[in-house]
């Protein structure tokens, strides 16, 4: 279980995270909702070790996250693939340099993933020759190859059409079924509808309200903050 306790972070005297408490079980999908600037991406960056917190603890299976290397993976909003490398090197580079795999082992593992995600024929292409969906899959493979326990997605469908959004939703659901803990920040309400998840609405750097998605869809009045956010968002669209 991933446990976040009282995470607090100030930036320029503003509380970007203001006492975030969250428990996410293994195999669960946690969907972080909220307007821009409420701290969703900062929370993911803290989990990935790209930002530090002023206060609070993060544990994974009761062990502090700082003692567990490579346990959190992240698929960035802009994917952040290494643009000077081809498809397969994007995967093998991390395996060799971060996990110390031999080039041959890294190559075999990368090819296995590329076959699984239908990118094997693109192995030697430059990443800028891939389509948006293919880049998304490559970013996921690169993350999965490092064998994390938790996978974070930062706005995974922000630049995708409905068909690709559906594919991403299916992939996320499959990852959870495979036992990964998945955390997703999104503005995309179609993901909320498609994914069996726990919805966490963030506001002013804290979790304002949480709900199991099936409970929410059965009884929306019980979760007024989430309902107000989703309805308000739909109206804006």
């Amino acid at each position: 279980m991933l446990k976040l306790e009282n995470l607090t972070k100030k930036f320029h005297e503003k509380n970007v995270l203001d006492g975030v408490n969250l428990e996410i079980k293994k195999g669960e999908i946690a969907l972080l909702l909220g307007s821009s600037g409420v701290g969703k991406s900062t929370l993911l960056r803290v989990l990935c070790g790209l930002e530090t917190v002023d206060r609070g603890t993060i544990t994974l299976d009761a062990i502090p996250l700082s003692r567990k290397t490579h346990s959190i993976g992240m698929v960035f909003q802009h994917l952040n693939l290494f643009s000077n490398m081809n498809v397969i090197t994007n995967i093998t580079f991390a395996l060799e340099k971060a996990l110390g795999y031999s080039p041959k082992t890294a190559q075999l593992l990368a090819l296995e993933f590329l076959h699984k995600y239908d990118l094997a024929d693109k192995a030697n292409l430059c990443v800028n020759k891939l389509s948006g969906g293919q880049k998304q899959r490559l970013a996921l493979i690169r993350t999965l190859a490092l064998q994390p326990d938790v996978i974070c997605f930062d706005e995974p469908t922000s630049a995708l059409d409905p068909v690709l959004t559906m594919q991403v939703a299916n992939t996320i659901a499959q990852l959870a079924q495979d036992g990964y803990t998945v955390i997703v920040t999104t503005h995309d309400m179609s993901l909320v509808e498609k994914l069996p998840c726990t919805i966490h609405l963030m506001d002013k750097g804290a979790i304002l309200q949480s709900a199991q998605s099936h409970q929410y869809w059965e009884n929306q009045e019980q979760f007024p903050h989430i309902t107000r956010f989703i309805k308000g968002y739909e109206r804006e669209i």
Partner: protein
Amino acid sequence: MIDFALFNNALPLLAKASINTLIIAFFSTLIGLWGGICIALAQQGDSVIGRFIAQAYVSIVRGTPMIVQIMFLYSLNLPFSPIVVAIIAIGLNSSAYVSQTIKSGINSVAKGEIEAAIMMGIRRRDIMRYIILPQAFRAIFPSLGNEFVTLIKDSSLAYIIGVHELFKESRNLMNVTYDVITVYVAVTLFYLVLTYGVTLLLQEYEKSWERTC
């Protein structure tokens, strides 16, 4: 006006001297490139002293004429031949300018790629070597090419310490023939051919990169 007989006779001599010109430009560029990388890294590093020294070096070198720097190094009576002294002096001068180009190249690399690598647990050294520098080098290659072309021209300053390069050879020819116009036309053409030829080669090399990542 132009003595074509002298012109034809001067060509082989100038061609031979232009080899030294290219040697000075090539090795100065290498020193400038490696020195420039070190200075750029020092300027972006965590060490305050390192940043101060790098900044001071850039300010001093860019704030003084190259001819003074060549003469200064020559006056130190280093145990090297004049051509090596010229290469070192021009290379060190170039490194101050190249460092600023490299710095802008490093800053042009997408921060997201660096963050992704940090998150994966890849060491800073490997991030610099395999992600930042290759991309930065590609971005600044046209500027580095221009620097090489500039150094072909700047190498003429080596004549001041007696290096037998293109300009020095032209001075020798003038002293013997007293035909300044013919010799200057010939040497001008030589510099043009060298700089234009190198520019074309660099452009072709740059085009070949379009087929790679």
